[in-house]
């Protein structure tokens, strides 16, 4: 169905080809996962299938790409539109019309399908993707996950024979991702659609793939094979494969189910060992005496009672009672982040309802929940971007939306979903100098942080030329320049490969050990398992669970990491824990 013959792609102005001598044949009706580290040329390869490379992006393509017998050299993307459906990384930049229903119909209109067919397919697709209730909604009023589903739906309606998707689930919560993947699987099985899909979060997709095409490094030849073959040599692999390699299972398990079947031996070996949880902040006596308020190294913490906010429902009344009767000791330092009965209304929608959350210094909290559950709103409330409609929110004792930004940066730092929003300057050096000025820090503070977190970046690099992970780290360094005791990360692993993620985990752990309180809003269950001491689940703006990571995620089908699913009921969360216990 898709055939690459000796294909090399060189973009103008780059010395090395992004793809070199690619020979690849993808048969009809397969779901092929394109894996590889960042910058290995995955997006270029996908673009070459839809004809956007080189017709739209420029650059030189040598060799030949044919899709369903059509040569992309002679067929422009629009002439391939009935064969190839393309979904990019950002759904918003994909939309042409302004309501869900019109968007689904747009592609078919361009192809000139008869109205009766369009009508039927729109209804089918609305059902298939669970969008029926949203059909008249303006696209801008949808949540990110809903938008991604509409984007996929909009290329599904012309019934293309090939679907090309670039990280379709990276913005989605685990449940929504499963839904989208189930849809893709159904297309492959029922309609014989060929699906080519690039994704960093292999743990979500690998189990559905018929084949994996691996681009091991920039310019390296791709390797196509069954998932088990490829995963045995791949530099990127999901936790289940990592565990399989650790335990020496052969063939490698690709699904949680496979792994569970083989895990009896491993479970036995692990019997008696206890998973080492990430070092929780040091609990101290109930009435801690205020030490000197050094922001960078606060070791004092609340007693667990004072900050464990919502516990299982049965015990709720007593906890509440306790909190009400115990007056906060005057000498207690204000916690880095505290929300009490916080409610926020946004555009006539109740985004948060009576949320209680306290974060102690040195503690890492993961906020999880489906798209639109209120995670980002809660982070915005902590940074004063939204005003509470009821309740209070405090960061280090100050009310964020009444604190001038200059003071606020010393109390709280947020790395937004799009780290680029924080970066204005043309070079890394300028950015760092500006960050020092903004934070009132000694000059060179930010540059030192960048050197520490991101070694090997030269001063003259343009922030735009950095990879996704490097940009995130630069934004992190900029935010950390003011040494805020509270650090908020919104969806930090979007678009990161496993190596970049591992670096981020190291950095964040170090910060937590330094006494920073960290809150991360994420859909990435593996990241939460690696980092968080505590997980807070949000649904419809309410806190529905709040407790130690192991307790919350092990019991949840959608938020449990792979290792915990494999080794349940024992509370192992990450491969690192298992590795340590076996060593």
């Amino acid at each position, binding site marked *: 169905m898709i055939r690459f013959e000796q294909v090399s792609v060189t973009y103008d102005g780059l010395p090395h080809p992004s793809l070199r001598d690619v020979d690849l044949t993808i048969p009809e009706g397969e779901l092929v996962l394109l894996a590889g580290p960042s910058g290995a040329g995955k997006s270029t390869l996908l673009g070459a299938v*839809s004809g956007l490379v080189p017709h*739209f992006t420029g650059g030189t393509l040598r060799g030949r790409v044919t899709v369903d017998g059509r040569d992309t050299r002679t067929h422009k*993307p*629009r002439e391939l*539109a*009935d064969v*190839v459906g*393309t979904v*990019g990384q950002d759904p*918003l*930049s*994909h*939309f*042409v019309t*302004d*309501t869900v*229903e*019109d968007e689904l*119909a*747009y592609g078919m*209109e*361009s*192809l*000139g*399908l*008869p*109205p009766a067919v*369009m*009508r*039927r397919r729109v209804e089918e697709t*609305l*059902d298939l993707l*669970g969008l*029926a*209730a949203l059909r*008249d*909604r*303006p696209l801008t*009023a949808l949540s990110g996950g*809903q938008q991604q589903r509409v984007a996929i739906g909009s290329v599904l309606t012309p019934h293309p024979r090939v679907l090309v998707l670039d990280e379709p689930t990276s913005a989605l919560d685990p449940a929504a991702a499963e839904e989208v993947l189930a849809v893709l699987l159904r297309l492959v099985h029922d309609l014989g659609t060929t699906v080519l899909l690039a994704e960093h979060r292999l743990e979500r997709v690998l189990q559905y793939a018929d084949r994996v095409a691996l681009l091991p490094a920039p310019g390296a030849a791709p390797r196509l094979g069954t998932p088990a073959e490829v995963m045995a040599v791949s530099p990127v692999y999901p936790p289940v494969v990592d565990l399989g390699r650790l335990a020496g299972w052969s063939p490698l398990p690709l699904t949680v189910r496979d792994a569970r079947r083989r895990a009896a031996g491993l479970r036995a070996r692990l019997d008696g060992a206890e998973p080492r949880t990430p070092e929780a902040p040091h609990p101290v006596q109930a009435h801690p005496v205020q030490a000197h308020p050094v922001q960078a190294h606060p070791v004092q913490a609340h007693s667990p009672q004072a900050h464990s906010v919502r516990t299982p429902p049965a015990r709720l009344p007593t906890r509440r009672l306790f909190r009400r009767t115990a007056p906060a000791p005057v000498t207690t330092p204000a916690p880095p982040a505290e929300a009490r009965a916080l409610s926020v209304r946004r555009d006539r*929608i109740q985004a948060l309802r009576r949320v209680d959350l306290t974060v102690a210094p040195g503690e890492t909290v993961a906020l999880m929940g489906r798209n*639109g559950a209120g995670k980002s709103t809660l982070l*915005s409330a902590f*940074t*004063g*971007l939204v005003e509470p409609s009821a309740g209070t929110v405090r960061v280090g004792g100050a009310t964020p939306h009444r604190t*001038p*930004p*200059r003071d*606020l940066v010393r109390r709280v730092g*947020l790395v937004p979903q799009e780290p680029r*929003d*924080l970066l*204005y300057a043309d070079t890394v050096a300028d950015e760092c100098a*500006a*960050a020092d000025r*903004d*934070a009132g820090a000694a000059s060179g503070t930010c540059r030192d942080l960048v050197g520490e977190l991101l070694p090997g970046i030269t001063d003259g690099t343009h922030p735009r030329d950095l990879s996704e992970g490097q940009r995130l780290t630069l934004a992190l360094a*900029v*935010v950390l320049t003011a040494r805020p005791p509270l650090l908020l990360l919104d969806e930090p692993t979007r678009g990161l490969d496993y190596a970049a993620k591992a670096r981020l985990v190291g950095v964040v752990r170090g910060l937590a050990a330094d006494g920073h309180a960290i809150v991360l809003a994420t859909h990435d269950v593996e990241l939460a398992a690696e980092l968080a001491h505590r997980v807070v689940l949000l649904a419809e703006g309410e806190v529905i669970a709040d407790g130690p990571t192991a307790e919350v995620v092990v019991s949840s089908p959608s938020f449990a990491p792979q290792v915990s699913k494999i080794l349940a009921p024992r509370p192992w969360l990450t491969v690192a824990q298992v590795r340590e216990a076996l060593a």
Partner: protein
Amino acid sequence: MPSAAAGNVCPSRSGVRCVLSACRPEVLVLDVLGLSAGAARVRAGRRDGANVACRGTSARSGTLPARTGETPRTRLHPGAWWLWSLSLGTAATRTTNPLLLSLLLATSAYVVVTCRPRTPAPWARSYPAFLELALAVIAIRLLFTVALGSPVPGSHTLLTLPEVPLPTWAQGIRLGGRVTAEALLFSFYDALRLATLLVCVGAANALASPSRLLTSLPGALYETGVAVVVALTFAPNLIADVHRLRAARRLRGRPDRGVRGLLQVGLPVLEGALERSVALAAAMDARGYGRTAEVPAPVRRTTAVLTLGGLLGVCAGTYGLLTAAGAAYGLPLLLAGLAAALAGLRLGGRRSPRTRYRPDRWTPRALLVAASGMATAALLTLAATADPAALHPGVVPLTAPTLPLWPAAAVLLGLLPAFLSKEQPS
């Protein structure tokens, strides 16, 4: 056949928009799937209470409010609303009678309030913005009259501002001086006329999305229409970007308000907008935008001849109409030119293979809405020539304006849409 099933459930011809109709798509989907039990449940729900039925089928998003908006089949053709609104605006330009203008304002406001679609789309909420703009127009006009004076003579001096002496080259301009009631009233009448026109445009925006209007263009102009629609969505996106980036400035510890904050995000905003445009262009290209069908050469040539000839005819006809000598051949030439150009456009549509998904139709209701507006405009134009004194009340000497009866009745014709498409109480 899904549409037939839906038609049985609630005939679109009845011209009644009901709360129940909001549930229809789900019913239809269930019918299509053959989930008769579910459909029966929904239907039963419809009988008991519409809201239950609406909520029962919203899938993942439990927070969705029950929709009480319009579905495409209860939606009027956007052209009808725009014709109606712009006709009222035309009517407003025919008169300076404040009573008639107020009546026009009230008419448009009443229709907007009763017929506005309940969607969270930004265009549907544009009416208040236009009202504010109209108020600003009146205020500015009055302020100018006070500050710069007015050529309208008057004897009722309200106050006298100190006059600034200006050099001789600025003769004819006055700063300060006498402010008369006559001058103020004249300016007010004049400004009210412009304000009413603005509010009518606002009504059009609130009643029908301008982008829907553009997508109803004939096939040959479709691609231009899409380009304009994309450009229209560009502005709100730009504003959203500015908000987001100003918020991000706060995260950097810089003030997020003030002009400087706005200026400093300028470049990143433009950069982002450009990148988004390129991404959108790629997506549109990959989805088949701009595909052309093979058209035989004779058809292509005929199209070119018809379009060019038609446009020439329109030019010549207009010229003929405007010159005294050409009144005889002007009108026929203009009409012939128009006809040829339209035929050319229609033929040109063959080049584009695209089809329409659920196009808005000119239903009798839509025609009535458009007709009511146009009738108002026509009657007021007639009245303006027949009885100019009543439609343009004098200010010198000061008199209270009176409400001329039959022009007022003509304005009330514009209320027709409110009764044509009024929701029935459930």
